C-alpha cells in the first residue's frame, strides 16, 4: 500500500501485516496492512467506532492482535516482531524510541508532580542522574513547546488544556523518539488553541524528522499534518493514499461523505 517510489533506500520503520482484532463477535479491526517510513506522518481517519483507536493500540503493542503482526525497526537497525519482544524490551521501547500522546493529557501526564519532573521522568528512567542537566533539558523542552519556563515547578493540574497537551508532547519528545503515536491530540481544545498546537506539532515533526501515526476524526488535522491518510470504516481500511489526493479527490462514497461533511472554511 505504501508508495515505494517515495522512499527508495529507506527501510520501513514500522510494518503492519494483516492486523486484525476481534472482541468476541465484534471485529474491531480487520486485515489492516501498511508500512510507515521514517519521517512520515500517517493519519488514520474515520468516524467513532471505526476501529481507529483499536488499531493504534495494536500498533503500539498495548493490545495483542487476534491475527497478523507488527514489526518495528529498532534503533540498532534490526527489524523485530513486536509480539516477540519481552515486556521489559517493549516498555523500554515505549519510553525511549516511541512516544504516545493521549487525547486526555491526564492519562499521559503525572498531574501531581511538577512540569519539570514530568518532562524529566523519561530521562531519569534511562539513567540520567544529574539534576542540573535534567532540569536544563526540561526547561529547554518547555521553551520548545512554548511553555513559560517560569512555570517549570508548577504541577500540570494548574495548566490550561492547551498547555497540558503541549507539556505532554514535550514529555514524549525529550528522549528523541523516532515514532510518536497520537490519539486525537487536538480533541477537546478550542479552535485557536488547536491551531497553535497543530502549528507546533508540524514544526517539531519536520525539525526532528519524526514518524507519526495520528488518529483523528478531524480531517482538517489530517490535512495540516499528515503526508498520507488511511480512511477506516467498520474496522477496515477502505481508502488510502496521499493526503491531498484522498481529501481532494475521494473515491469511496464513504470518504466523499466524510469530506463533504466538513464545513467550508
Amino acid at each position, binding site marked *: 500500500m505504501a508508495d515505494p517510489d517515495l522512499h527508495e533506500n529507506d527501510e520501513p520503520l514500522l510494518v503492519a501485516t494483516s492486523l486484525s482484532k476481534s472482541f468476541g463477535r465484534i471485529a474491531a479491526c480487520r486485515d489492516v496492512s501498511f508500512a510507515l517510513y521514517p519521517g512520515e506522518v500517517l493519519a488514520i481517519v474515520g468516524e467513532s467506532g471505526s476501529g481507529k483507536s483499536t488499531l493504534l493500540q495494536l500498533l503500539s503493542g498495548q493490545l495483542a492482535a487476534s491475527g497478523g503482526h507488527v514489526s518495528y525497526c529498532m534503533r540498532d537497525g534490526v527489524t523485530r516482531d513486536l509480539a516477540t519482544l519481552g*515486556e*521489559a524490551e517493549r*516498555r523500554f521501547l515505549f519510553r525511549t524510541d516511541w512516544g504516545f500522546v493521549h487525547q486526555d493529557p491526564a492519562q499521559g501526564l*503525572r498531574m501531581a*508532580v*511538577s512540569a*519539570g*519532573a514530568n518532562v*524529566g*521522568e*523519561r530521562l*531519569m*528512567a*534511562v539513567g540520567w*542522574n*544529574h*539534576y*542540573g542537566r*535534567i*532540569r536544563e533539558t526540561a526547561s529547554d523542552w518547555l521553551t520548545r513547546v512554548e511553555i513559560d519556563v517560569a512555570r*517549570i*515547578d508548577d504541577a500540570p493540574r494548574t495548566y490550561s488544556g492547551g498547555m497540558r497537551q503541549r507539556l505532554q508532547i514535550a514529555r514524549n519528545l525529550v528522549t528523541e523518539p523516532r515514532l510518536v503515536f497520537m490519539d486525537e491530540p487536538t480533541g477537546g481544545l478550542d479552535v485557536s488553541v488547536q491551531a497553535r498546537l497543530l502549528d507546533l506539532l508540524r514544526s517539531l515533526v519536520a525539525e526532528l524528522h519524526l514518524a507519526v501515526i495520528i488518529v483523528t476524526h478531524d480531517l482538517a488535522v489530517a490535512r495540516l499534518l499528515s503526508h498520507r491518510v488511511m480512511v477506516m470504516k467498520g474496522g477496515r481500511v477502505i481508502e488510502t493514499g496521499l493526503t491531498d489526493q484522498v481529501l481532494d479527490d475521494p473515491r469511496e462514497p464513504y470518504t466523499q461523505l466524510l469530506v463533504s461533511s466538513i464545513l467550508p472554511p
Partner: protein
Amino acid sequence: MNAPAYNFAYLDEQTKRMIRRAILKAIAIPGYQVPFASREMPMPYGWGTGGVQVTAAILGPADVLKVIDQGSDDTTNAISIRKFFAKTAGVATTTATEEATVIQTRHRIPEAALSENQVLVYQVPIPEPLRFLEPRETETRRMHALAEYGLMHVKLYEDIARFGHIATAYAYPVKVNARYVMDPSPTPKFDNPKMDNCPALQLFGAGREKRIYAIPPYTQVVSLDFEDHPFEPYRFNAPCALCGAENSYLDEIVTDDKGSRMFVCSDTDYCECRQAAGHHGSLSAAPYKDKAQGGANG
C-alpha cells in the same frame, strides 16, 4: 514466667513456619517484598504487628530481646512489646544494645555498632517505596520486576525543585544489593549509612500490608541521589544536652512556650551509657548520679 496459655512467643508453630519461609525467601532476594499471611495480633495495626510477627518467628528461648521506639526503650510501644514477649515467650529482655540478640525497632537503628550475632527487626507501616508515586500495586510490582526505578528519582527531583535540596528526611529510598529499591521504614535518613554493609541481619515486617523483606548481613545498601545533589545524612547541628555526643541522632524537645528547646540523643541507651561513662552535656544534672541499668523486664 512462661505463661502456659500461649504457645512459645504467642504464634502457633505452623504460623511461625510460614513466616520463617517468607523470611528465608526475603533473605535470598535482598530488598524484595515477600508477601506473607499476616495474622491478627493482640495490638492495633500501626503498633508494630509486622515486626512482632517477625520477632515471634525468629525468637528462641536463649534470645535476649531489646525493643526500641524512636530510639527509646521506655515509650509505650517499646515497653508493651517487650512485656508481650517476656510474658508469652519468657525470654530475657534488656535495654542494652550490646547484650541483645534480637532488637525490634520502630524508626531507628541503635547508635552502638551491631554485630553478627544480632538481628534487627523493623516495624514497617508502608513497605512500598513507590506507593505515593504510582498508586497501582500491579504496576509497582511490575516496576520492581523490571527494575524500572526512574520514578523514584522523580520524587527526589521534586524535592530539589521545591526546596532546593533533597528534603526527604525519613523513609529515604535505598537500593539494596544493586537491584531492588526499598523503603527502609520511616527511619531518619541519618540511619541509612548504618544499613550498608551491616554485620547484623536486618528484617522488615509490615503487618497490615502483609510483606516481609530483608537485608542480609554485609549487603550493599545505597541511598538514591543525584550526582550534583549527593545523599547527605541529616542531623541537628548541636551536641546532646545530656551526654554531649556530637555524632548521634538527636530529638528536639521543646521545653517551654518561649522557643527554648533542647537536643538529646534519640537513642536512650546510648545516651545513658555515655552519661554513665562520665560524659556530660550542657543540661546534665550535676553531679551525675548512678542509675540502675537494664532490668526493665515486665
